[in-house]
């Protein structure tokens, strides 16, 4: 049984560009959350998706947007990249029956130059 998978593993972008990160949840999980982890910090909640809708959002600007597909996979899009967007982006999934327990993927390391 595959866990949460994320792609790509690493990514280098230039300021002002746009980026799309992808996440496939653990089998049987229908809720996906995204977190940003800056170097030396704990993860910060970006948003959560369920039934293809954004259900909750953290303190992130509109440059951060997402999408969930019918197969429960999800994308995180970031527009107009800033140097400060450099971070590890983590995806987590959970089943609706046990929302409290989140399973994390390995993350995508984004570097903005």
């Amino acid at each position: 049984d595959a866990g949460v998978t994320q792609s790509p593993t690493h990514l280098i972008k230039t300021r002002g560009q746009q980026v799309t990160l992808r996440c496939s949840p653990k089998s049987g999980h229908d809720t996906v959350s995204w977190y940003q982890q800056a170097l030396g910090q704990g993860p910060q909640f970006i948003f959560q998706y369920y039934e293809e809708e954004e259900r909750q959002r953290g303190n992130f600007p509109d440059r951060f947007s997402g999408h969930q597909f019918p197969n429960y996979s999800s994308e995180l899009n970031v527009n107009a990249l800033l140097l400060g967007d450099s971070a590890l982006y983590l995806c987590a999934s959970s089943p609706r029956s046990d929302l409290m327990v989140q399973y994390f993927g390995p993350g995508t390391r984004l570097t903005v130059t």
Partner: protein
Amino acid sequence: AQSVTQPDIHITVSEGASLELRCNYSYGATPYLFWYVQSPGQGLQLLLKYFSGDTLVQGIKGFEAEFKRSQSSFNLRKPSVHWSDAAEYFCAVVLLYSGAGSYQLTFGKGTKLSVIP
């Protein structure tokens, strides 16, 4: 606003020694508390969780944590540390948005554990 504080940025212990990692939270209601571990280059793995009931909870890899409401603490312990325990440890609290049927985890800044052979 809820917050989680991990006072120790970095802790070094000898293999076989006992370990206690501190976590304090600020939250008005009954908290749901978690400890996660992150190995270098890896995602987060859940060690244990506290929702209610017995204030001493057991987790994976021989870890346990004790919830103390009077001290707003949820410290992680292990009686004998193994070299493979070297990693970063995060305490987290969940805020439940019951109206939206959703929630989010708020994490501390983490404690990096180094183990001396």
